């Protein structure tokens, strides 16, 4: 059974600092999503990583995928308060049907 582990689960950062969230998974997969969730809201798609070595960047967030190491990272650069949210990675088990399994989420708080 696929296991998806995120760390840290809780992250408190000062504005302007950098940090990385890690997502490890236990079985082969070539597709991974990163989502953002604000309290009481649905999941907002941030990135989809489709192959080994994929790197995507949007604003202060950058995601990468190493399928050989079964590891994805979400790097935050110069954090701002608006980035405070819970971030989930989701690993695709079956590429044909996009069957996803989620990590436990990282609750990020960015303090002024």
């Amino acid at each position, binding site marked *: 059974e696929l296991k998806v582990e995120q760390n840290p689960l809780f992250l408190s950062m000062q504005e302007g600092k950098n940090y990385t969230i890690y997502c490890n998974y236990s079985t082969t997969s070539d597709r991974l999503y990163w989502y953002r969730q604000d309290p009481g809201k649905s999941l907002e798609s941030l990135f989809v990583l489709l192959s080994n070595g994929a790197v995507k960047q949007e604003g202060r967030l950058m995601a990468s995928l190493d399928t050989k190491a079964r590891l994805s990272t979400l790097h935050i650069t110069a954090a701002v308060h608006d980035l405070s949210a819970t971030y*989930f990675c989701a690993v695709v088990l079956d590429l044909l049907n996009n069957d996803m399994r989620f990590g436990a989420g990282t609750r990020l708080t960015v303090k002024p």
Partner: protein
Amino acid sequence: DAGVTQSPTHLIKTRGQQVTLRCSPKSGHDTVSWYQQALGQRPQFIFQYYEEEERQRGNFPDRFSGHQFPNYSSELNVNALLLGDSALYLCASSFTGLGGYFGPGTRLTVL
């Protein structure tokens, strides 16, 4: 393009009742997946519908059932509601394995 829509937004039921939640996928998408997200937890896969059939199912009891219509919209039915069924129910749509777009969710409260 309307994106993924879900209805209702909120719902309150009592134990033992039955509920039906609805989802319309993003235009051009033919696959609908349903997830349950309890408060403070990760989304858990319930099942997926493709070509009007359940293609895959997570670890949920038979009280959870679904349906997909010819226009690709889908329903999630839960019978004999339990307090533990209180959660945010999310639907995601995709096409040929690409997508992962989520709707706004339905917040179900069971009293």
